[in-house]
């Protein structure tokens, strides 16, 4: 894996205001997927923040961003580990799908609150990975773990393309 630390890609990401945030909880099994994705993205030289989901400080992470990429686990019920890429730039996410948060402020609500207050960046892409298990505990399910490399790759391609450095070898 090429080390992209302080490379053209990171500078371009900063210059273009591309903010990447992985959201989740390390102690709720598959809910940690967004956090782990952020860690792996950083290992690949992408600037990516981890966030526990508190809505007020989460909104701060994309203040002044031009493009926002969010990664979060989504509610189980269909295919565990399935990856979803959703454009939330102009339309709301399904509140029933992104509902795992305290006090009924899930990721869908935070995005809509930010849109209402005029603080949402013009481009918002949400990568969701379907959880299998959100009970108390640590470690991802095999299904989510198996899908995570593909999700990380997709986010990298997206960041590098939007940063204008698509020629960087990724893997």
């Amino acid at each position, binding site marked *: 894996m090429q080390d992209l630390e302080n490379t053209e890609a990171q500078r371009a990401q900063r210059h273009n205001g591309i903010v990447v945030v992985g959201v989740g909880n390390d*102690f709720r099994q598959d809910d940690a997927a967004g956090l782990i994705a952020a860690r792996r993205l950083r290992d690949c030289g992408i600037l990516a923040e981890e966030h*526990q989901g*508190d*809505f*007020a*400080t989460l*909104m*701060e992470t994309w203040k002044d961003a031009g493009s926002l990429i969010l990664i979060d686990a989504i509610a189980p019920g269909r295919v565990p580990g399935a990856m979803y890429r959703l454009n939330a730039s102009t339309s709301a996410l399904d509140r029933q799908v992104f509902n795992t948060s*305290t*006090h*009924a*402020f899930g990721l869908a*609500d935070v995005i*809509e*609150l930010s849109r*209402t*207050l*005029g603080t949402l960046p013009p481009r918002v892409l949400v990568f969701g990975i379907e959880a299998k298990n959100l009970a108390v505990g640590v470690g991802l399910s095999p299904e989510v773990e198996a899908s995570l490399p593909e999700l990380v790759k997709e986010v990298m391609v997206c960041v590098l393309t939007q940063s204008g450095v698509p020629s960087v070898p990724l893997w």
Partner: protein
Amino acid sequence: MRTRTINVNYLARVEGESAMLVRIRNGRVAEVKLKIFEPPRFFEAFLRGRSYLEAPDITARICGICPIAYQMSAVHAMEDALGVMVPKPIRELRRLIYCGEWIESHALHIFMLHAPDFLGYPDAIRMAKDHPRIVQQGLELKKLGNEIISFLGGRAIHPINVRVGGFYRTPTRMEFGPLSERLKRGRDVCREAVQWTRTLPMREYPRDYEFVALQHPGEYAMNEGRIVSNRALNITAREYDAHFEEQQVPYSNALHSMIKGRGTYLTGPLARYNLNLGLLPAPVREAAREAGLGETCLNPFQSIVVRALEMFYAFEEAIRIIEAYDPPETPSIDYETHAGTGYAATEAPRGTLYHRYSIDDRGIIQDAKIVPPTSQNQKMIENDLREYVTPRVDIPIDQLRAECEQVIRNYDPCISCATHFLKIEIEREA
């Protein structure tokens, strides 16, 4: 027989999972049950066999909204067991971190969860379309509360810097940097917010509560004091179990707390205000008077005004503590571990939080008891609903459902803490 049924399968803007049943038969309220079905979380059992040092960090995991309350009750109970008295600078820093939690928790409830009820919005997002400045202010205040917790606790959610005997690390005076100035701006915004809550459409609903809260001479109690009530209760935390009992009810995973021989009581901002108003500093009492609060406040709907007032107080107190800060010689004091039982009650944003631990001579926890404020208020929520619905049994069902939800949110209940949400069923039978 005429039956009317209202079902709310998922009441938003309450932390945790629960249901409410209101059954109306022949125009009378026949049954009210707050059914908490969030699974039991077994924290008291997890704690057995763990080191006493772990209790503050393990119990902080009970709640993402009020982790400091859990840390404070746990650390003070352990210090009670070990006979540890922390020096004043440590005591002040603990009060400061509690101010942070009161600010962030009250700001969340006032602006994002409770205010939409008063203004007729289904949620804060819809409210923000018409009242963006108010919601922005709420977010700013909440962030300042989070900032205090992050600064002293290491992080905003489940902080990790509190330990038995003090802190793992204490800040230098320099490290506070511009925090005090930011808090002063927040205090001004908060003072406006107190007056804004006065403008909210307010239902008249005076209640005859037994209020229970901590009381401490010379300060509005947070971390220590005697447990007192307006009906002559005046005890130490060590006497809690002799005066309070928990009852199991078949329909709820949370225990109901009662005062032995008397029954239900209310804990939280309204209780604190009514028992400790005289201990608030003059600017806060002045803000209370301007907000239309009298010497007593018996209307649970006005809890939103009292929460705003307490938030204003927490800003005042945080600024006072920072400006007078004299760093401790060491972040924590030395002590010897020995067997014992310790007791503590502190004031979580939503009410009194009681902890009791027994440890052996190696400091291993043998027994733990935790009584969160929502457990204590659970029965009173049912009483409030019964009394509220009784004269209103014939109003349109959607309106009654919305008003019942507001009655519940007066308490800022934290169901996750109590199980140890909210689905409301109102059945009308005639």
